């Protein structure tokens, strides 16, 4: 069965003060209907840019999609006209963003903004759209939905605004929901609530979710498969259990080890908080080798010269690392 969303060899470049920088370098991934794909990585690794590229929202005029394809239900969105893209956006692929505080228009009511997508894509009249918006507000557990629908964004808290965003994204029953760091800007307790909500909505509607985050806990709970990105490239991909239990790429291992561990009980040495030494290199200074080589404890000379191809590490699980090359030269397709 063909994947619902398939990205192949996506390349995105940006014009900056330092010249043309490649922010996404040959990224390929796919999302199947109903599944939850997690994309993890540090800030700046390109995960948000991937999401924007899918939606055709790469910032112009500085950004350019230079190569690759984004196939949604078999059709390449990058080659499609603007009119078709607009039809897909908000209707069949929806997106929620990181900053709920600023992602809603302050001069329109919440109801207006939620209903707008329904009026546009589903052709609903204003009365029907409003009723539907109230339904959605209830689905995202906002109390007193009938009253609050006429309120303005500044009258809602951060967590509630994110719920409003989710309502707005799901009102047209999209097949894919892209959630770009939906909880990073929120308090810890609220974060858990939002993830619970996303899970609930996914389970009731069967929406595929692309969850972009650096919260490994959320990944563990929600994701079916995981993609790990570093400096604009994909470095590892696999089922969530495999990634968490047997991370193949040194970067993934580092990410997982960085999580603070809680040890109950007295006695025993306190563990030192792990970290990955060094910082992400500036993108315009990347060479042709593996971008992680500078920080990798196991780097080989080869790592700096050539970017490793995808190598199988298990069932449906592969990583781009020279350390993995099996002796008989077997490689992933």
């Amino acid at each position, binding site marked *: 069965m063909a994947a619902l969303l398939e990205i192949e060899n996506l390349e995105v470049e*940006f*014009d*900056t*003060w*330092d010249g043309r*920088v490649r*922010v996404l370098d040959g990224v390929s991934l796919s999302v199947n209907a109903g599944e939850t794909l997690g994309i993890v990585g540090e*800030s*700046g690794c390109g995960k948000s840019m991937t999401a924007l590229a899918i939606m055709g929202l790469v*910032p112009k005029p*500085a950004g350019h999609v230079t190569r690759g394809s984004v196939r949604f239900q078999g059709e390449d969105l990058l080659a499609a006209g603007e009119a078709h893209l607009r039809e897909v956006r908000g209707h069949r692929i929806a997106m929620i963003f990181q900053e709920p505080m600023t992602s809603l228009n302050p001069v329109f009511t919440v109801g207006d903004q939620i209903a707008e997508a329904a009026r546009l894509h589903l052709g609903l009249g204003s009365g029907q759209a409003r009723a539907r918006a109230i339904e959605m507000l209830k689905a995202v557990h906002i109390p007193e939905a009938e009253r609050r629908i006429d309120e303005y964004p500044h009258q809602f808290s951060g967590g509630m605004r994110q719920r409003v965003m989710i309502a707005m994204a799901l009102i047209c029953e999209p097949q894919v929901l892209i959630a770009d760091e939906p909880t990073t800007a929120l308090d810890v307790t609220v974060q858990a609530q939002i993830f619970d909500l996303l899970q609930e909505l996914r389970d009731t509607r069967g929406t595929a979710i692309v969850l972009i985050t650096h919260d490994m806990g959320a990944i563990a709970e929600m994701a079916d498969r995981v993609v790990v990105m570093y400096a604009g490239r994909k470095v590892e991909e696999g089922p969530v259990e495999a990634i968490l239990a047997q991370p193949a790429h040194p970067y993934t291992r580092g990410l997982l080890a960085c999580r603070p561990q809680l040890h109950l009980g007295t006695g025993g040495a306190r563990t030192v908080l792990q970290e990955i030494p060094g910082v992400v290199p*500036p*993108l*315009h200074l990347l060479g042709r080798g593996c971008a992680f080589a500078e920080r990798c404890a196991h780097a080989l000379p080869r790592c700096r010269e050539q970017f490793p191809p995808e190598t199988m590490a298990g069932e449906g699980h592969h990583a781009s690392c020279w350390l993995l090359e099996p002796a008989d030269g077997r490689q992933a397709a």
Partner: protein
Amino acid sequence: MDRLAASASEARGPWREAWSVFKRNYAALVGLCILALVLTTAIAGPWLYPVDPFDIVGAPKTPPGADADALLGTDYLGRDLLAGIVRGGRPTLMVGFFAAMIATVIGITMGALGGYYGGKVDALLGRITEFFQVLPALLFAMVLVMLFSPSLVTVTFAIGFVAWTSMARLTRAEFLRIKQLEYVRAARAIGSSNSRIIWGVMLPNALPPIIVAATLATGTAILFEAGLSFLGLSDPNVMSWGMMIGSNRNYLREMWWAVTFPGVCIFLTVLAISLVGDGLNDAFNPRLRTR
């Protein structure tokens, strides 16, 4: 996106950084050149071309180029236009500059004290600022000049006295912003006196937008002076560009040159100042420049 842009060059000192950005701004450089030209004419002109603009040199209303004694023509009384233009720069520039200085000093003081102390002081100063804002500045200046005799000094003070409100607002906003910053809190923590903090720590950091505003204020003051002399309210013994326009305006149809040329001078001067001011603004705020 900002991260990408920020991951760029090595750090330079803020003033040198500003200068290098300014240098690249062609409009600002053009402005600077025009300004230099105007200043040179104002300073050296009367010495190089010592004709008294009040002297009658030829027939009235002579067009430019018709009379060798008056290259730019004569006005309705027969006075040399070129002399007027050469002489007219000085009062315009001087009044503009000093009036802007006065307005800046008053404005900075009001804004700094209000922004720093807050509370009742701020409320009081704010009321005063609003009060001055409500009065149409030119009218008020006109009244002041009428009541206190029209001399260059009166005009300068009148303009400075009415034009300080935007400077005060700007300074106050800057101080409110800077007050929150770490190094101010640090200065307070080590027990520096209030006045030391205001004038020694905060003001130097608020300087960039203030410098830009002061530059633009000079332009505004020049327009003010031109308006006042156009209406005949400036020193009658000093020939300024505004006065030339004002005295000749009734003969506009027959004598377009007497009105056009002085106006072009004012326009170029203010334009030059605006360009330089804009350049400074961009230089201090590289973030705002579109690529």
